């Protein structure tokens, strides 16, 4: 299907090629974005979306290829060039200065003179105008650090507009937004489109793509594999294009035989730095021999809940019960909780699960380095920890099988297997697994899923937190859904849940915060 009259291109990328050392991040990428449209770009992590947009915004220069803006070839060597050509970018991590006011942030780089006073007056007017035109209202004198993420994102968009951007790139804009905020954002993007501005939306959420974009492109392993009108495609087709082959994520597992409750959370509340509740009054149970999947849009309190259960984040109120016994507050720390038989695969292995500059064998004892098996008294025997990891490497097929290699030198999948081997070989009663397959290749995903099921079958209580709904549905015996820090539902998935559209729709509502009472 083609559009009848091709709209003029706002931006055209022709044969963009970019390598970082051995990594070929963009391979002859060609993309045409029509003016006055919303164009989605989807792809898995590491597919090359961010690199492509960074080239467009002047962070990197392409090794080869051409960029055309409004039909004319341009060279974009810096953000300054990009801004000059009317390109604005809203980064996933906001580029804002917390200690400055909204006005100062918007003005930065567009001051309009050596003294700020005159420019400030002009920008105040512009802010008011954009507020009226696009519903982008925000107090210009508020300190950015005091604003919520939704408003901060608004400031980012205003920054781009004040600089006269006609092409707006948004990188995973909804990752940090509540569903309501996301809706507001999309409404605003729609108004921008009507003003003939061009929007490039980078996301990995297919629902968003289907809901707001005019056209969509799919990237996979550095290549642009598909570009089509959104109306002419389906989430299934896009997912196929993203992954490359049709993998219906299934995990071979028998029926569960749930035993007694091994992990229980009672009215857990976790507060953030500024006293804002990140997890509010959450209660649930996980039985032995059961995998509970915790679903939700990233940033809805799942990570904080997981860290609270693992003893890393303090509880503001509520309690945790392990095998029926309340964990006393003195034991609510990672060390004591681990000793109670809880294993924790953290969501981010780089930040938390491993020590990258250490030898793998040393990373592989993090948290269990007090185990008497690794040495008498105060000693930590290198010989023993190396032998220990060598054994685990064989069992988990970790490559290269060299326990003395630096942790950072293993691939993501193998790093994750090191964490898994460490946490699971302790024979824990409870396993918390955060994003267990993030950034891991297909082969390792299967392996990790099999392991989790094996743990379940061995009578452990397993809690999996994942933003990949497919993974949750494939693994879980029971699904918990979080939104805005609250538990919005608990469902037992029907057989073949992933292809059950009513069930998926129901989960989607729960993830958007539509609870039973409200529904």
């Amino acid at each position, binding site marked *: 299907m083609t559009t009848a009259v091709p709209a003029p291109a706002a931006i055209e990328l022709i044969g963009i090629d970019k390598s970082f050392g051995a990594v070929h991040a963009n391979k002859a990428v060609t993309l045409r974005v029509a003016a006055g449209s919303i164009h989605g770009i989807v792809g898995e992590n590491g597919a090359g979306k961010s690199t492509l947009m960074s080239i467009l915004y002047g962070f990197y220069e392409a090794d080869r290829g051409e960029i055309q803006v409004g039909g004319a070839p341009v060279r974009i060597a810096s953000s300054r060039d990009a801004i000059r050509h009317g390109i604005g970018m809203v980064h996933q991590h906001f580029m804002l200065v917390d200690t400055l006011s909204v006005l100062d942030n918007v003005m930065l780089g567009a001051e309009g003179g050596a003294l700020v006073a005159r420019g400030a007056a002009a920008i105040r007017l512009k802010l008011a105008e954009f507020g009226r035109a696009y519903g982008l209202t925000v107090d210009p004198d508020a300190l950015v650090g005091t604003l919520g993420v939704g408003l901060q994102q608004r400031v980012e968009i205003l920054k781009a507009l004040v600089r006269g951007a006609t092409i707006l790139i948004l990188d995973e804009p909804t990752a940090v937004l509540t569903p309501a905020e996301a809706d507001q954002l999309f409404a605003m993007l729609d108004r921008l489109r009507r003003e003939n501005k061009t929007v490039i939306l980078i996301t990995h959420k297919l629902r968003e793509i289907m809901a707001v974009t005019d056209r969509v492109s799919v990237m996979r392993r550095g290549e642009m594999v598909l570009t089509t009108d959104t109306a002419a495609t389906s989430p299934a087709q896009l997912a196929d294009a993203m992954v490359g082959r049709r993998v219906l994520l299934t995990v071979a597992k028998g029926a569960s035989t749930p035993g007694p409750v091994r992990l229980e959370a009672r009215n857990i509340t976790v507060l953030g730095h500024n006293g804002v509740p990140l997890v509010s009054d959450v209660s649930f149970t996980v039985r032995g021999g059961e995998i509970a999947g915790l679903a939700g849009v990233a940033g809805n309190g799942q990570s904080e809940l997981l860290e609270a259960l693992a003893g890393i984040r303090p509880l503001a109120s509520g309690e945790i019960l392990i095998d029926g016994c309340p964990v006393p507050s003195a034991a609510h720390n*990672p060390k004591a909780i681990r000793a109670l038989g809880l294993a924790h695969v953290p969501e981010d292995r780089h930040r938390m699960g491993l020590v990258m500059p250490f030898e793998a064998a040393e990373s592989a004892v993090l948290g269990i380095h007090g185990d008497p098996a690794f040495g008498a008294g105060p000693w930590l025997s290198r010989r023993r920890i190396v032998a220990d990891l060598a054994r685990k490497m064989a069992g988990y097929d970790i490559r290269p099988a060299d326990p003395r290699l630096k942790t950072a030198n293993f691939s993501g999948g193998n790093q994750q297997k090191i964490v898994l081997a460490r946490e699971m070989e302790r024979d824990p009663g409870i396993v918390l697994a955060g994003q267990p397959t993030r950034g891991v290749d297909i082969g390792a995903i299967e392996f990790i899923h099999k392991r989790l099921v094996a743990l379940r079958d061995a009578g452990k209580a397993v809690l999996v937190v994942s933003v990949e709904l497919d993974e949750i549905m494939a693994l879980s015996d029971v699904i918990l859904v979080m939104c805005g820090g609250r538990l919005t539902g608990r469902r037992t998935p029907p057989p073949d849940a992933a292809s059950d559209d009513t069930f998926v729709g129901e989960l989607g509502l729960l993830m958007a915060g539509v609870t039973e009472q409200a529904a």
Partner: protein
Amino acid sequence: MSAPISLPRWADLILVPLLSVATAFLVGGLVVAAIGVSPWEATKTLITGSLGSGEALGFTLYYTTDFIFTGLAVALAFQAGLFNIGGEGQATLGGLGAALVCLYGGGLPGWLLIPLAILAAALFGALWGLVPGYLQARRGSHIVITTIMFNWLASTLMGYLLVNTLRAPKSMEPETARFPDQAAIPSAKSILGVFGIDTAATPLNLSFVLALGCALALWIFVWRTRKGYEIRTTGANPTAAIYGGIAPAAIVMLTMALSGALASGVAVNEIMGVQNRLLLEFTAGYGFVGIAVALMGRAHPLGVVLASLLFGILYQGGAELAFDQPKISRDMIVAIQGFVVLFAGALDGLYRPHLARVFTALPRTRSGPI
């Protein structure tokens, strides 16, 4: 961060520091030449003056002792990701601890008094490290600023005590009375004399052995014990440390206390080994030498010992050089020290990209890790 430049391990541990130090000395040589002294002659004087005789060697090793202590102090803190600039203050307080025991425990026999005094020195030094450690761990103060302030606090405290309280009666100098004879740590001359070896009198004393012992103990502690593992983990990735059940606050305090105790070794060497009384400014900037030593020695005890020896040569040889060449003063050493800190520390990355290019150009490269 951008991808770190990856070099073979030996290049990282040996080649890069050597190049940095060579550059520092080259710049030092240029300064010497600019003053109008032949760098070649200066180097000769430096070497013979520091290694050319038993006496020279004794002085060299005596300086080396101080630098091992302060270098280890800085190196240990580095391992925990901390920058301890407070070696001067910690050593100063160590001196106070040692002096109090030596002055008020005069009746004790030497075999008891000396260990007690060393312990007191370590305790006082540890305390002066612990407080900034506590302030960083529990109150979020920046350790660099706090330790700098604690250096000055130590120096004013010592000034007050030596002028007002501890000054020897009838003395005009701000220093204490002499310690009892049995409080003196045996000198190298007296010990070697026992074995019938006659050597020149130098300030070298048994503290040198203590320093080497500390280096070995530190290596074992940091790389072979669970606590050492916790310290390194905290330094390399504090978030992972928390995840691993390690309390970074406790580690920071422990490390700073141990670091302060190590720095107080300077007091043992100077106050108990050489001066036998407490006096002002006996630390003589050795705490800062520790920074250069630790940077050069890659925060590893063996590296620290070797770097300390180099600085020992520099200090002793520099003194000879200053004696020999009126145009060169001992301040030369401080300048070279600065160059070493600059090139081996702040400009550590200067040669890496070039070396990396050389290494990747080499045909025989090991198959890279995945």
